């Protein structure tokens, strides 16, 4: 499928995430390939979102949370002492479970992130391009000054994607981006992801196995294990292998719906 050896952007080494003394995620070793979609699946409460939020250091806002091990972005440890989380988030954007546009105009929702990050170019142009990339331009081009809250849920979520790509991140994290949307909006988001992976590396958390099977190139399977009931990754490989020929019995039970 590929001629060159895969280029890895994010690599985790023995990554464990704690909330105080509670070990939420344990010993994750992952290689995220560039310009591919990697899905993280698993039963609820297994630490999928926690793992995802570790990649752009959103867990920093939970007091008492800390990590051991490493998350390397092009060889740089994101949790190194000299790393500024604000710079990390500038490079690793995020789309959340529920659409959360700012209470500003559609235009300002896109422009704000670019402005604070020192964007020097033509703002109108950037807004248009970002909205086009998020397949939203045609629907909103006549009401850019209107409040983002006037959009439908699906449009709001695409706006959130547009605002993320406006600051040109390298990686986009998506935390169950379609779970609050109707099937048609979901489909549009999934189509959009296929477009976006031409330029961006995408990591998506989903509880919907069909979605993972449809959109992703690689899949990481997580599960609660051990006496401490902490989440860990039990299998990571190409998506088609996970769904057709899983190595782990628990993965097979889960993807075939036999997981209790």
């Amino acid at each position, binding site marked *: 499928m590929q001629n060159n050896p895969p280029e890895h952007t994010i690599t985790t080494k023995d990554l464990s995430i704690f909330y105080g003394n509670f070990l939420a995620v344990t010993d994750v070793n992952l290689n995220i390939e560039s310009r591919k979609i990697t899905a993280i699946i698993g039963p609820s409460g297994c630490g999928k979102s926690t793992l995802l939020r570790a990649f752009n250091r959103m867990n920093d806002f939970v007091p008492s949370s800390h990590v051991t091990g490493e998350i390397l972005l092009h060889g740089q440890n994101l949790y190194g002492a000299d790393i500024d989380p604000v710079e990390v988030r500038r490079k690793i954007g*995020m789309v959340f479970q529920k659409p959360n546009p700012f209470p500003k105009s559609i235009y300002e929702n896109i422009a704000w992130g670019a402005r604070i990050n020192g964007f020097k170019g033509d703002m109108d142009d950037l807004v248009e391009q970002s909205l086009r990339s998020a397949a939203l331009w045609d629907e909103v081009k006549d009401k850019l000054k209107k409040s983002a809250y006037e959009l439908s849920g699906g449009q709001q979520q695409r706006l959130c994607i547009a*605002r993320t790509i406006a600051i040109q991140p390298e990686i986009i994290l998506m935390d169950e981006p379609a779970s609050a949307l109707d099937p048609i909006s979901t489909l549009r988001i999934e189509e959009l992801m296929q477009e976006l992976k031409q330029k961006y590396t995408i990591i998506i958390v989903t509880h919907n196995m069909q979605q993972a099977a449809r959109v992703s190139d690689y899949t990481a399977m997580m599960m609660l294990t051990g006496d401490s009931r902490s989440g860990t990754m039990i299998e990571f490989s190409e998506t088609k292998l996970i769904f057709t020929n899983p190595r782990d019995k628990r993965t097979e039970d889960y993807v075939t719906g036999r997981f209790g």
Partner: protein
Amino acid sequence: MNPPFDLTKKPRIGESLIQSLLFLAGVLSIFTTLAIVYVLGKEAWLFFGSPEVTFAKFFGGTKWQPGIGQFGIWPLVTSTLVTSSIAMLVSLPLGLSAALFLSEYASPKTRSALKPILEILAGIPTVVYGYFALLFMTPLLQNIFGEQVQVYNMASAGIVMGIMILPLISSMSEDALSAVPRSLREAAYAMGATKFETSLQIVLPAALSGVGAAFIIGISRAVGETMIVAVAAGAGPNFTFNPFQAAETMTGHIARISGGDLSYNSIDYNSLFAIALMLFLVTLVLNLISQRVVERFREKYE
């Protein structure tokens, strides 16, 4: 066929009696409002009905001395405006800043240490603030600005009133700021915003209507505040916008005149009710607007 139990309603006299009493207690508040409107309205009606008083005099004159037929309300209104404006100039920036610090920056520990101090400030009786205005703030202003500052002056009363209102603005604004959902902050952080950019450019605009409600309530408090101005602002109507001069506010005037020997049914007596009616209407409108804004704000985020 007779059922083995009788499940039909039976009168419970005790229950109904209690319910009626509770209902009365509930509607008493409505009667309070009606009584306020009636009492103020009736005496104000007598005031405006007296042959000497005309609306033209009332809203056109700049001298207030009912005893000698001067009925211009403006001196009392302007001084109320001046003291309230000074109070808001002090309390809004300080209160809002304090709220931003408490809700966005302070650790839970710092917050629980600092908030009681603001609560103490809010609990100090206004007459004590009056003492503070007259015997601390006025001398201080006289030291800074020299002799142009009169012993009684609106600036000192206004500044101290601002300090009094500060805790109110701060706690209402803080409520509004903390009501902004976490998802908005997270969205901002995920765009690479710093904490400061998030709180000032995302959280504060999102909470703006709540802050506006606090501001409006603050104005209402300032307009209705009596003791600070009665002690420190001045003891006589004076048509001026100079904050260093003495001028009596609407509330201060009511307090001074009613505290003296006042004979019922005189024009002086009735005029006080006319002033109080204006005061009541202004604060009522402000309070209603503020409540409405807060309700809207809650609906938006709940």
